[in-house]
């Protein structure tokens, strides 16, 4: 059995997820990356030390797929210490006319993608001193003018975290969520918006964020680092907002 600590990052191939994967590799923690895109998973394998990274193609919203991947992970005798549920998608919900299917998609992509890996891992029992972090959003607090299906799904994720933490506390499993503000990262949505209309986006941030700047991945990584440390062993069920106080 490996003596290294082990983390699973759901949605760990790009954006904030990529930075979380990188964080674990830099900390010499073995990281199992789950994602939907084979190309991006292969890129992760090429980018990082093979001894520290394992990748699996998996649609986390499908319980059957999650179950079979977690069985494989267990067979390889991985004992999980950290689970980061970062998978999510706000893109498909940027529509004016929202349909029933938009709501279903938003919940599948932003809530079920966290619920499935959490509950399957607990069922498989291959964990030790487990700490779980769900990446929610300030949209979950109905801030930031995000579309309603996305906001509702993220709000549910925050409340799922809160409710499930009571059950997990008995097993000494700590689970919290982080709600990032508007993340600015090369080639992400905000980056593209900023590039297309700098003045408009600058005005938006000035008007809506007290600290007058975008959130950067490092702001979130710092909080993850703290929540995974021994220094935070008395906190569970809480949502931490890292949003520069956004409206």
């Amino acid at each position, binding site marked *: 059995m490996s003596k290294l600590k082990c983390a699973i990052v759901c949605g760990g191939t790009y954006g904030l997820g990529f930075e979380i994967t990188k964080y674990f590799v830099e900390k010499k923690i073995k990281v199992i990356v789950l994602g939907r895109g084979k190309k991006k998973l292969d890129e992760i394998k090429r980018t990082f030390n093979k001894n520290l990274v394992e990748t699996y193609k998996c649609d986390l919203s499908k319980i059957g797929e999650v179950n079979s991947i977690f069985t494989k992970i267990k067979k390889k005798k991985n004992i999980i210490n950290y689970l980061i549920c970062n998978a999510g998608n706000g893109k498909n919900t940027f529509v004016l006319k929202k349909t029933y299917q938009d709501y279903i998609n938003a919940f599948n992509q932003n809530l079920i993608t966290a619920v499935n890996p959490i509950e399957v891992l607990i069922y498989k029992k291959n964990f030790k001193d487990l700490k779980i972090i769900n990446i929610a959003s300030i949209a979950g607090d109905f801030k930031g003018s995000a579309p309603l299906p996305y906001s509702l799904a993220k709000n549910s994720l925050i409340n799922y975290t*809160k*409710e499930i*933490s*009571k059950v997990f*506390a*008995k097993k*000494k499993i700590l689970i919290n969520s982080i709600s990032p*503000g508007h993340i600015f990262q090369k080639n992400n949505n905000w980056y593209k918006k900023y590039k297309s209309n700098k003045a408009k986006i600058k005005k938006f941030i000035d008007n809506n*964020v*007290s*600290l*007058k*700047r975008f*959130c*950067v991945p490092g*702001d979130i990584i*710092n*909080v993850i*680092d*703290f929540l995974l*440390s*021994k*220094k*935070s*062993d*008395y*906190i*569970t*069920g*809480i949502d*931490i*907002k*890292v*949003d*520069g*106080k956004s409206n």
Partner: protein
Amino acid sequence: MFNLTGKNILVTGAAGLLGLEFVFSLIKYGATCYAIDINIKELKKLELKLRKKNLSKKLQIFKIDITNTKQLIKFEKNLQKKNIFIDTIINNASNNPPPKKLIKSSWHKDIDVNLTSVKNIIDIFSKKMIKNKTGNIINIGSDLSVIAPDQKIYADIKNYIKPLSYSVTKHGIVGITKYYASLFGKYNVRVNCLSPGGVFNNQNKKFVKKVSKYIPLGRMANKNDYNGFIVFLSSNETKYMTGHNLVVDGGRTII
């Protein structure tokens, strides 16, 4: 993980149960603490402890009544004369006597200590922060900043209920936090609240057992359980957090 070297941190109520823990931890991580309280006996003891570790220079003790605005203004001026810039404030002082007996109307005292003095300290010390475009203010709330007290916890203590003023002031602290976070954001001065749950302090076994049943993690906090959180919020690692009430209570408030 954290480095507070070069930070000058003002801690009120520094001689209290959590105050002493906070001061010690902040110094351990490199900060210089300006510790104020009305009773400095315990701080003197801490100074001796720090002397053994060659850290006593990192602790400056001041006997100050935070409800006396004149004393606070004089204190700030003295620091200015010495070119000391307080970049972090921890508003930890609070009137919360142990639940032993019926306390006759503590309303005005609670408002003075738990709210008015916090506002005054922020107003006095934030001017320099605004000028320097950097600052960090941490208010200490309570799990009772988000929930109401369950008076059943105190049922065995004759003629005692948790006073209304405590709830009001702790909810108010969150309001102060959000207000100043919104006001000071543009000056890069951030304001957060740390809300701890009940701390074990040799209360009787029956009381501890009763309180622990309300806490998913199954125990009251140890007095050092919050040290990591105060260092975390004081550090630059949280430079994008402002206006947040960080509740650290073993899950008490999620029930």
